[in-house]
């Protein structure tokens, strides 16, 4: 362990602008009603505790991650490739950060005891993986395009196809959990989770772009999904709230 004697106090992370984050209390998303706090949040200064977090040595090149090869053979469904970079708001690469992903299989079923949707499990697909971004913040994985699935939020409720992403970033303050959606999904306008983000342009950043550069000829379609974490600005620690 390398200790730090003095906190790196010359920057803080920018606050999220109004409307960027979804509100936790969101009645259209029924599960939020009994779980979201109702008291106003208390401003927390960015101290050394919030400005540090788990970080990792970036691999020398983009890690090879493949969710499509199971114990007994290839997973069923449409093979796709997803690539992108983890950046901050100023366009700087976030190198050596841990990314974890999870998703349903092609039939819209998760390998999870709580998922009772009447759709088949695939013995060759777990739907989970993790990787660390390289020096340029890049990642890339092969997977199966996830299916839509029903949930009980409201009558005839279906989640659009999505892949869950968990990203650490350089500090506790940058921790992000989000979902990646697919372009042209007809369910997106009806999904209360996707639409919980008020600003349309911010919401649509969660939709991956079909990408020829990520597409592999005779193999699979590619999608690009860049993840942008909070950037820093130079408010000195003394002036913070």
């Amino acid at each position, binding site marked *: *362990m390398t*200790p*730090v004697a*003095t906190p*790196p*106090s010359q920057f803080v992370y920018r*606050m*999220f602008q109004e409307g*960027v*984050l*979804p509100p936790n209390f969101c009645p259209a998303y029924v*599960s*939020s*009603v*009994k*779980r*979201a*706090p109702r*008291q106003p*949040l*208390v*401003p*927390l200064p960015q*101290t*050394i*505790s*919030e400005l*540090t977090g*788990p970080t*990792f040595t970036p691999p020398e090149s983009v890690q090879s991650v493949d969710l499509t090869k199971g114990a007994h053979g290839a997973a069923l469904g449409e093979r796709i490739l997803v690539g992108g970079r983890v950046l901050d*708001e*100023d366009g*700087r690469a976030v*190198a*050596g950060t*841990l990314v*974890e*992903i*999870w998703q349903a299989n092609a039939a819209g079923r998760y390998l*999870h005891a709580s*998922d009772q949707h009447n759709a088949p499990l695939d013995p060759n697909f*777990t739907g*989970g*993986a*993790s990787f*660390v971004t390289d020096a340029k913040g890049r990642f890339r994985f092969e997977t199966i395009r996830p299916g839509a699935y029903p949930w009980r939020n409201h009558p005839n409720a279906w989640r659009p196809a999505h892949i*869950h992403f*968990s990203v650490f970033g*350089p*500090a*506790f303050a940058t*921790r992000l*959990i989000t979902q990646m959606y697919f372009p042209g999904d007809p369910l997106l306008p009806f999904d209360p989770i996707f639409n919980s983000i008020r600003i349309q342009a*911010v919401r649509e*950043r*969660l939709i991956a772009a079909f990408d020829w550069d990520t597409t592999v000829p005779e193999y699979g379609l590619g999608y690009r999904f860049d993840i*942008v*974490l909070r950037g820093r*600005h130079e408010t000195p*620690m003394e002036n913070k709230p």
Partner: protein
Amino acid sequence: MTEAPEPGPLAVSPSLPVTSYQTVGPYFKIGLEAFYRNDLTNPNTPGRIVEVAGAVLDADRAPVPDAVLEIWHADSSGRHMVQPQAKPFDDTFIGFGRVPTNEAGEFQFRTIKPGAIQASGPELQAPHILVSVFMRGLLYRLITRIYFSDEPGNADDPVLRSVEQHRRGSLIAQAVQGRPDRYEWNIYLQGENETVFFEL
């Protein structure tokens, strides 16, 4: 060093729009289980081993069986790990833990009690653990802190003092009588004793 603490050229305004949050959903175990860890201790790490146990409770005081907590804290001398690990997460103590709740909404973790931390200026921060809470039903994470009831430094802690006095107790894990290294701390998502959650 980590990316974060290096002062670099900083733009006046951001050039890229930030990626927003979505709920962790009910099936996070598939992606997050590989790095569950509720015992952060290591024979090579100096300090006093403590246990923190509690439950996550909703508006009806019903247990939340599908929450996951992440914790981050300093070592016993009050220093945070800033050295990148070679691989996520080996057995080295770095002060990070990830703990899901069980069917009864309960969680428990074992770690090294953090030391007091030099804040900016002359202030000391009392020993504390930062917590992120994720669950189905939360579109954004909840952020809170755990302090320890037997720390005299709590009275002068700048963050605790920024919280209305009648709500401070929700941030303080209570020492359990007769079990010197055990603390209890619950998360009340809503209602009369709603836990203090922070905006960061």
